[in-house]
């Protein structure tokens, strides 16, 4: 190793030494910005990801080379760990040098951090932005699950947008709720959110959001209680958390673009007017107020129709990022809530049908997709709360030229059969507009055999649309089988090393079980150290799965030991004798046999594959929590030490 490092240094010296003899040094040796550019951080807060530069010599990685990262000495800038505006890092065997944590200073503006190598004339630039602390922030959120109220269980969906000030006060908002039975927010106004409170533990990012709506039929006399688990300051996993309903979703800081345009991929999951589960997925593009070039696949209670064309009209968003999509064949009216320029949540607000999902922009990739757009990936799909209950996750590698893939996957079709580490293979195709399909052959994954694939911007993190640094690319997925249906996500698999599955994680899960014929949902946070997860969270449990507190449980503990599947790197088991154990206060421990698939160290999915229950959810590495509303207010019910 030392010998190789010295050789690389000598190579650099040789090449740069030759520069005086007229050789093209820039071609022979160079430093490039690999990742970390384009980030924003609130003033005085750490950036989410380090700055990563790659040094090559003669086209090959140069290891053992010192890279100097230099931030501006004055004005908007920042400091590396230790407080200096410069830092050095040495390249590894891949020629990669990773900076120490970089923290924004107190001046808001854009600037450049330069990475340089002695003797190499080229430098690499990292564009960074320090953003000012705002008096308030807007968040958009969405959820779906099972409603216990309204003579339930009923399926229900909820989406909205709220303004929250730095003290955690909910100042205003709008939302649309729809159970397609009786509780459908009035249209076109939706419900008005007049108040509420966000209370968050500043250290763990865990807390409670209450929303006071003008619709007293919802929640408890119009007050909806939502458990939140911030993954970073801009992204939270959420569950509705009161006696009336349980559901899972996410909440993300909202940035309204000047206009919506370009290609989009989308999926929706809900119930049709006959109250059977229905999923839809496809692509469309937006030009001014016209939604065009739409193609949608539909699985309506097992009746599958593919590639149906549609058009529609999309209204301009209001100040909460809420607008309408009408004239499509999908629903009479879909409302949308913008997350950002390339992400929106969509909800069916028709009184006789309901559904919720996402639409993600395709960015510069629109019109240029192909089979090569889909590489090594991890996928996760789950039925909604009303369909035949199942969830499946897996990973595969592709051969784009042949349109084939192979991999491994797990599937739990609740109460009937579990497929564990099943070998899967088949064909796939992706059209230029991102509309595609993947077939799992030979029934190797039970009833899961036909997936619609809808490609999104390869620079977008579908699990955290405000993130620009990791987990980028992928597609939305609709399961279009005749015996079950569901929706999910597919993201590139970039790192299967077990060492990467370590640190602090936020997580969630939506569980369907036979014990209650119902659902519970949870979010939490904790650490993974030596593959051991130790965490705390909250559970929404209005159908009495955990007996101790029949409706809502905070201070719930989670623990489990992940064992790497050496035959399928990137796959882990939390099986007996070290299963995932969830324990509610004053309750008995409940064991869950869990499978984990790793897309990267920052993004994983887990699946409970018990015979009488299943859950699917994400595990996402926690980022900086600085700048959270109400971060100074510790939630008494969720106060605990960080698990590290």
């Amino acid at each position, binding site marked *: 190793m030392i010998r190789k490092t010295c050789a690389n240094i000598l190579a650099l010296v040789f090449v740069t030494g030759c520069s005086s003899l007229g050789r093209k040094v820039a071609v022979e040796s160079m430093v490039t910005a690999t990742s970390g550019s384009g980030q924003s951080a609130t003033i005085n807060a750490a950036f989410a990801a380090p700055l990563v530069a790659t040094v090559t010599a003669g086209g090959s990685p140069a290891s053992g080379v010192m890279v100097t990262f230099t931030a501006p000495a004055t004005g908007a800038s920042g400091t590396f760990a230790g407080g200096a505006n410069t830092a050095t890092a040495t390249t590894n065997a891949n020629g990669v040098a990773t900076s120490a944590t970089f923290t924004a200073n107190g001046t808001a503006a854009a600037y450049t951090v330069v990475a340089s190598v002695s003797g190499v004339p080229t430098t690499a630039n990292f564009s960074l932005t320090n953003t000012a602390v705002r008096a308030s922030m807007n968040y958009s959120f969405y959820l779906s699950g099972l409603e216990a109220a309204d003579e339930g269980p009923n399926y229900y969906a909820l989406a909205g947008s709220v303004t929250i000030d730095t003290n955690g006060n909910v100042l205003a908002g709008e939302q649309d709720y729809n159970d397609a*039975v009786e509780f459908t927010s009035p249209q076109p106004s939706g419900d008005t959110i007049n108040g509420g409170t966000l209370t968050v533990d500043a250290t763990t990012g865990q807390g409670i959001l209450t929303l006071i709506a003008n619709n007293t039929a919802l929640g408890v006399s119009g007050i909806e209680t939502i458990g939140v688990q911030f993954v970073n300051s801009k992204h939270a996993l959420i569950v509705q958390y009161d006696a009336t309903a349980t559901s899972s979703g996410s909440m993300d800081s909202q940035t309204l673009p000047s206009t919506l345009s370009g290609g989009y991929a989308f999926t929706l999951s809900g119930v*049709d*007017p*006959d*109250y*059977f589960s229905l999923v*839809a997925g496809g692509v469309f593009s937006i030009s001014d107020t016209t939604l065009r*070039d739409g*193609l949608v*696949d*539909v699985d*309506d*209670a*097992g*009746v*599958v*129709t*593919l*590639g*149906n*064309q*549609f058009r529609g009209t999309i209204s301009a968003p209001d100040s909460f990022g809420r607008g309408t999509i009408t004239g499509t*064949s*999908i629903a009479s009216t879909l409302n949308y809530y913008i997350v950002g320029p390339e992400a929106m949540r969509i909800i069916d607000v*028709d009184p006789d*049908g*309901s559904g919720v999902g996402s639409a993600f922009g395709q960015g510069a990739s629109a019109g240029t997709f192909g089979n090569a757009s889909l590489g090594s990936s991890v996928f996760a799909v789950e039925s909604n709360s*009303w*369909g*035949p*209950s*199942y969830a499946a996750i897996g990973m595969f590698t592709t051969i784009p030229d042949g349109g084939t893939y192979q991999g491994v996957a797990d*599937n739990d*079709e*609740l*109460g*009937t*059969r579990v497929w564990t580490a099943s070998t899967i293979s088949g064909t796939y*195709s992706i*059209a230029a*507009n991102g*509309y*595609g*399909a993947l*077939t*799992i*052959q*030979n*029934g190797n*994954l*039970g*009833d899961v*055999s*036909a997936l619609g694939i809808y490609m999104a911007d390869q620079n977008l993190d579908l699990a955290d649309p405000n993130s620009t640094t990791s987990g980028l690319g992928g597609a939305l997925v609709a399961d*279009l*089988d*005749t*015996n079950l249906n569901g929706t999910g996500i597919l993201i590139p698999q970039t790192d299967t090393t077990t060492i990467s599955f370590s640190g602090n994680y936020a997580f969630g899960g939506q569980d369907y079980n*036979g014990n209650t*014929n119902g659902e519970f949902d949870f979010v939490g946070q904790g650490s993974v150290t030596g593959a051991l997860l130790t965490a705390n969270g909250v559970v929404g449990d209005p159908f009495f799965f955990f007996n101790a507190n029949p409706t809502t449980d905070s201070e719930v503990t989670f623990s489990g030991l992940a064992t790497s599947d050496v035959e399928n790197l990137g796959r882990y088991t939390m099986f007996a004798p070290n299963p995932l154990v969830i324990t509610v206060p004053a309750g008995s421990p409940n064991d869950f046999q869990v499978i984990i698939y790793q897309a990267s160290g920052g993004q994983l999915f887990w699946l409970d594959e018990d015979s009488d229950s299943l859950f699917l959810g994400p595990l996402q590495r926690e980022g900086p929590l600085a700048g959270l509303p109400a971060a100074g207010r510790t939630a008494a019910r969720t106060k605990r030490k960080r698990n590290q």
Partner: protein
Amino acid sequence: MRHLFAELCASALLSLISALPPAQAQTKTVETTIAGPLSYDASEEVTLNGVVSSVLTKPSSGMIMGSHLLLATTSGPVDASMGKFGLLGAGAVSVAAGQQIGVTGVMKTIKDNQVFIVRTVKVGGEVYAVRNEHGFPVSPQARQRASGKTSGGTL
């Protein structure tokens, strides 16, 4: 969401006769392999007649999820799976031990046991739908909506 099947069929028909650009007429093939326990092939349906020996709103050990009827038939005892909502909520199957009933569905082997996946139940002249022709469970809400209809839907 709308009755997408019916509407999209109409939409697809319209699209065939309209002059939309050929580039939009994309097609894709999704092969469906029926292999799993949730698969339901209506072409394999049979009808069994028997006497209800037990009504189980929750499954016993070893049974698949949902409610069950244990039937005594001329061929022997049958575990009839009534699904998630068969015996639950408004419009649920009204049946008691000792009653003669007819069940239409598909016999499958799940968890090493023979289980009859019921699509419809006939009790005293009344026919109840438990699942649709693809095996999707019929919920109380779905029953309520179906009973209020003047014409049939797509399901």
